[in-house]
Each structure stands twice: as C-alpha cells, then as structure tokens.
C-alpha cells in the first residue's frame, strides 16, 4: 500500500508543525542571509532537529538513532522544502548517515550527529555537472594510509562540516565504479583548501582542493576500492530525499501562488477568475501530485530493498525537478512585478529550486539514467 502508517502520519505532523513554526523563511533563510552567516544555516535549529530525534532519523537504532527509512526522511524533507528551511538535514542526517551506517566511521561520527553538534558533508562532484562515476581525485597508498590529490565542488556545507566524505580513486580508471574508495576527511586536515562559496539561493557550498592530504587507513568508509557501495547508499538517499524536498518547494511555491490569485485584483476582478491562469494553476497542481507520488514510491521501494528502487529514484528526482521548475516559474510569473522583488518570498523558491535540482544530479541527468538503466 502506498498510504502512510499511523506512525508516519504522526512524524509528518510533527515535522510540519515544527518547521512551520521554527523553520520559516523569516526566521531562518532570510535571517541568516541578512546577517551574513558564514554557514548559511542556524546551529540552534540544528540542535532543535536533534532534540526532536530528527538528526538520527536514518541512524540505526543500535547507534542510538531512530533507524527509520527513506519514507520518513521524505516526509520531513517535504516540509523542509515547503518552508525553504536551511539546515544540514538532507546531507548529514539522510545522505551521509546512509553512507556511514555499518562502518567504523559511523560509530565515530554518529554521536555528534545525534547530538546536533556535528555536520557531515559529501564531496562527490568534480566538475560543473554531477557525474559520480567519473571520480578523478586520487588516493595513493602511503605509509599507514593514503594521500589524496584532486578537487571537488558543490560540496554543500563543506566549509561548516566537521567531516567530509570524499570519493577518491584507489584503483580502476575514470568512469569505472570499481576502484572508488570513500574517505572520511576532517575539515582541518593538512593540505585541504576550502573555499566557502555562496550559491544563488544564499546557501553555502564549498570548493575543495586536496593538496596531498594525508589520511590514516581507518579514514576509509567501508572497504578500499569498494566505495561505490556506501556512496550509492548516500546517492540513493540523497536523490530520493532531494526529490521529496523539491516536491515541498514546488508545493510551497504553488500554495503561495494560489493564495495570490485569490487576493490580487486587476481589471476589476480577482486574477484567479481568469481561465488562462486557472488552467495553468490546475496543470501545475497535477504535476506536483504526480511528482509527490513518484517521490513516495521511490522511498517505498528503497525501504523495501526492491531491485526497482534505483530506477524509481531516478524517475522521482527527474519528475520532482521538472515539477518544481514549473512551479517556481509559474510562481514568479503569476505574481507579476511583486514576484521580482527581494521583499516578496516567491523568488526564494525559484532560487532554491535551481540549487536543489542540480544537487545529486539535475532532471536531465536522471532522465538519461532512466534511459541507460532501461537499455536504450
């Protein structure tokens, strides 16, 4: 069944009221932007996530977490998206936690994440497009450990993270999944240059340069040469999660727009009376509903360990990316001039959509992956 259980509904209600109260654009996104916060999010809010147990949503119960699945993460992330709440929830509590589960590095970092003290980042992309198979950063054996050389970009919260999970090549050649190893690198490692970059949505991502960064052998997450296993866990969780967040962004933007259609008068009428706008709003509603169903289905299949999960994750990220793009574009257009102003919140949805669509691969990438998996 695709319907939620009572426990899931409760969790959703909790996340909904928590984020509608504490995670608002005014209290978080706008506030941290206007005060020039170097992290782009509030550590106080991250602590609140922890107090509610949410930082441990995906962390196994044996490690003190809630041990919940992609479905529960999606429910929270939809509300994160709706409120445009900046936090490390997606990257740290959902994606990185999945990579770390069942590893020694997990035992090391989980307590800090559970407490809301630790932020973890993922360093995957090396070029301007998401091509996770094309890892060129090298990790060469030296002494008791490895030496990392290369560069990464679009590392969300990279400059604020305590630990960065870095995909590097210990074998194989660029484009191959084998030979990729995942390392847990601490932020203050020698030779690691971090440039904190502000993105269009006012969030922070980093460009990292690894100038012969030396790490111990125990920095390896999982097994050497077999980093694709934890990496793909993180990618699936991150993609399914960002799809759900995009659904929230799309829904938040559409709700704001529908409300505006009911308030704004032109030509002596509420603009929502015009059929041209009604039909576009109704089409948008339809696209968002379908995107939500796809996001939930992807999460459900991931949680069930289905062999169709990966395909559906690509579908969900692609569909949610397109639905959200439509929603924010219609949002700004239907708001007219006020939609172009910084004073109005609708523009924040457009900016967040652009970033979230690219994160873990944009919709074109994922449509291409659907074709690749289907063999055409």
């Amino acid at each position, binding site marked *: 069944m695709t319907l939620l259980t009572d426990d899931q509904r409760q969790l959703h209600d909790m996340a909904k009221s928590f984020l509608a109260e504490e995670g608002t654009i005014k209290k978080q996104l706008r506030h941290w932007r206007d005060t020039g916060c170097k992290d782009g999010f509030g550590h106080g809010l991250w602590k609140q996530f922890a107090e509610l147990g949410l930082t441990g949503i995906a962390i196994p119960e044996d490690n003190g977490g809630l041990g919940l699945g992609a479905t529960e993460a999606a429910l929270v992330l939809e509300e994160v998206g709706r409120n445009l709440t900046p936090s490390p929830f997606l990257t740290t509590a959902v994606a990185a936690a999945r990579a770390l589960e069942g590893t020694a590095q997990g035992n090391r970092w989980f307590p800090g994440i559970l407490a809301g003290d630790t932020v973890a980042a993922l360093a995957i992309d090396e070029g301007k497009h998401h091509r996770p198979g094309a890892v060129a950063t090298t990790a060469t054996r030296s002494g008791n450990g490895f030496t990392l050389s290369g560069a990464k970009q679009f590392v969300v919260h990279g400059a604020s993270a305590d630990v960065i999970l870095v995909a590097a090549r210990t074998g194989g050649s660029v484009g191959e999944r084998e030979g990729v190893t995942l390392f847990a690198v601490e932020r203050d490692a020698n030779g690691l240059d971090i440039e904190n970059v502000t993105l269009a949505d006012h969030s922070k991502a980093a460009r990292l340069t690894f100038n012969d960064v030396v790490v111990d052998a125990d920095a390896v997450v999982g097994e050497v040469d077999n980093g694709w296993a934890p990496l793909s866990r993180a990618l699936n969780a991150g993609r399914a999660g960002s799809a759900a967040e995009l659904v929230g962004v799309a829904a938040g933007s559409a709700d704001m727009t*529908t409300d505006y259609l009911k308030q704004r008068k032109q030509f002596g009428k509420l603009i929502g*009376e015009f059929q041209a706008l009604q039909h576009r709003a109704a089409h948008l509603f339809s696209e968002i509903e379908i995107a939500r169903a796809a996001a939930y289905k992807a999460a459900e299949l991931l949680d069930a360990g289905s062999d169709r999960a990966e395909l559906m994750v690509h579908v969900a990220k692609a569909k949610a990316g397109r639905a959200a793009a439509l929603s924010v574009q219609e949002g700004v257009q239907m708001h007219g001039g006020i939609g172009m102003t910084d004073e109005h919140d609708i523009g924040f949805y457009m900016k967040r959509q652009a970033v979230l669509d690219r994160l873990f691969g944009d919709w074109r990438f994922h449509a291409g992956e659907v074709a690749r998996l*289907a063999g055409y």
Partner: protein
Amino acid sequence: MAEAADLTQFREETRAWLEANCPPEMRQPVKSEEDVCWGGRNFKFQSDAQKRWLEVMAQRGWTTPDWPREVGGGGLTPAESKILKEEMRRIGARNPLNSFGISMLGPALLKYGTEEQKQRFLPPIVRGEIRWCQGYSEPGAGSDLAGLQTRAEDMGDHYLVNGQKVWTSYADQADWIFCLVRTSTESKHGGISFLLFDMESEGVSTKPILLISGYSPFCETFMDNVKVPKDQVVGEVNKGWDVAKYLLGHEREMISGMGLGGGTALLGKTLGEIDDPALRAEVAAFDVDALAFAAMSERFIDQLKAGEAHPAMPSMMKYAGTELNKKRHELIMAGGGSDTLEWESERTRKGKPAREWLRTKANSIEGGTSEVQLGIIAKHILRLPGA
C-alpha cells in the same frame, strides 16, 4: 513492509487458483480489438478459452473483485483486490471482461440503485451477459453536458423518451443504455434524470460515426417515442445529475488508466533502436512522466479505496492520463518514422500505429475535455474564484 499473514495466504491461494484456471491462451498479450471480451447478448467468443476464462472468473465474482457478494461480486477487500491484480499481471492474464457496466454503471447502481435494481442489473454485469452503453452527450450538449435536451415525458405508468445522443460508444453492439434525459425544464441541472432501457426497445436506432482514424467506435443514437418503465429510473427523478457526476468520476478513473499504456514497460524499450539523440531525450523524459504517473495511479487507487481521495481527483487523473497517452502515441509515430505512416499495408497491420495515434486524440475530449477537467480542479481543489 512485510505482508500480513492472511494476505500472504490469500496471495498463495490466488496464485494457485489462477495457475489452475487461467487458460494458457489467455496469458498471451491482446493482439487486436477482437481479442477483447466485451460480453453481452450478441458477443461472439473468439475461442473456447476466452469463453471459459470469463465463466470461471465470473463464477468467483472476480470480474468485479471488490463488489459485494450479494450481487455476485468477489467481496474482496482493497488489499485483496490489489493482490489479485498483481497476480494476474504476474502471469500476463488478460482482463476476462471489458465492460462499461463494471467500470461505470455498476458503481452508480451500488450507490444510487434500489435493492431491486441492484439484484436485477448487477449480477448480469458480473457475468458479462448484458453489455451497456452510455447516453450522455448530445449534438448541442458536449462540454456543457447539463444543457441536454432529450426529453422523457411522464405518461403516468411509463416515460416517453424522444431525442438524440451522440458519441455513444459501441451503441450498435450494446444491449442496454444508461441515459441522461430531461424530465423538467424548470432547472438546468435539477431537471435531469438517469434512465436505463433496453436498446431493443421500439423507437431506438443507432448509426456509427466514422472517425479520422477510419474506425467507428462511436454512434449516434436516436430515440423516437421510446417507452421506458418507471422503475428504470436510478436515483430520484430530477436528481440524475448527482448520479451522472458520480458515474463520470468512475469513467474518468477508467480513462485515466490509459496513461499507464497497458503496462509498465518503458516506451524507450519498445521503439527499437533510437539513433536520434533529440528523440532519445524526449522518450526518456516521457518515460519519467509515465513511471511517475504509474506511481500516482497506484497511490490514487489506494487513496480512493481508503476514502481519502478528494472527490475531484478523478479529473486530475483523467487529465494527466490522457495527455500522457497522446504523447506516447506521438512518440511512437516519431520513432517509427515513415513506416508508421502506412495506412493499409500488412506491414503495419492495416495502419495500426497511425490509426491508434489518431484515436488517442479523442482521449482528451471524451469523458469531459482536458479543459473541463482543469476547470474542475481549479474550482473544487484549488478553490479559485469564479471557476
């Protein structure tokens, strides 16, 4: 999520029963219109297997798995119905019976029919003995359906029906019709009644309409002094619009199923080699939409069965499903290049791709146009003003 023990048992029993009872020929994909079983008084079965498959399924009530046992249905819970569907899909079992009686009239009778009407009309639908057609649209009442003019005059012991219907699907092959008629001119929506009558009644005639596809799935239906007994009104007199709307919801649900393209196979897998990168990208984007819609469809059905679906959601499903189906056929034509333009050759089985492509253009018109559906979403879900 683990399946509950009783459901697992139901699944095993269902699987074993289907294995024993579904003839091998009925596990082959449907190749042409003739392979589809519509039942009815005049239906000619294509094979013994087709006949037997209908009989064994009907006997179990599994042509209508979730209808109550009292009217011959299967009495299955939503979860059990879903399992039956999954198990049938697993072995590629054909639908034993296509029927507007099942997909449209039945649900309306279950909700609005009298006990006597249910007992009289539902069991023959379950068994595929009576084939129904729908008399809704008229030459002057399409999108504005409530403007219909076909009159039913109260003659004391019966109604006398005069008027014309159009786009009556398969009226020339149907046994009975469910029909919207005007019983009062005092109010537009409040003067409509929902009437059932036999197509063999004196005064009923039909004429097929040739479409751009070269097919004639629709007819004009003429009623000239047709006598209809009074106990064949469903719901209250002059309140037929409620029945009609309820039924339209089910019709839209059925039509939205077209978006599934008959299965979950990806379009890109069926087109053969795609050497044009622009087409490949378009097909990939379509497959994303199609798989997402399949997820929506499953979710919608679950919500519907749990009573959690918004009453206007069938409009959304109808809109999205039909637009998707049109797109699917545009891409099939694009992928087939000039091969698919052949109208009569054996290579194309007499122009199947082109004719089907043209037929799909009706999808977003029949059962309420896409624009009508968008209007319903705007009014009832988004609650936009003046919609």
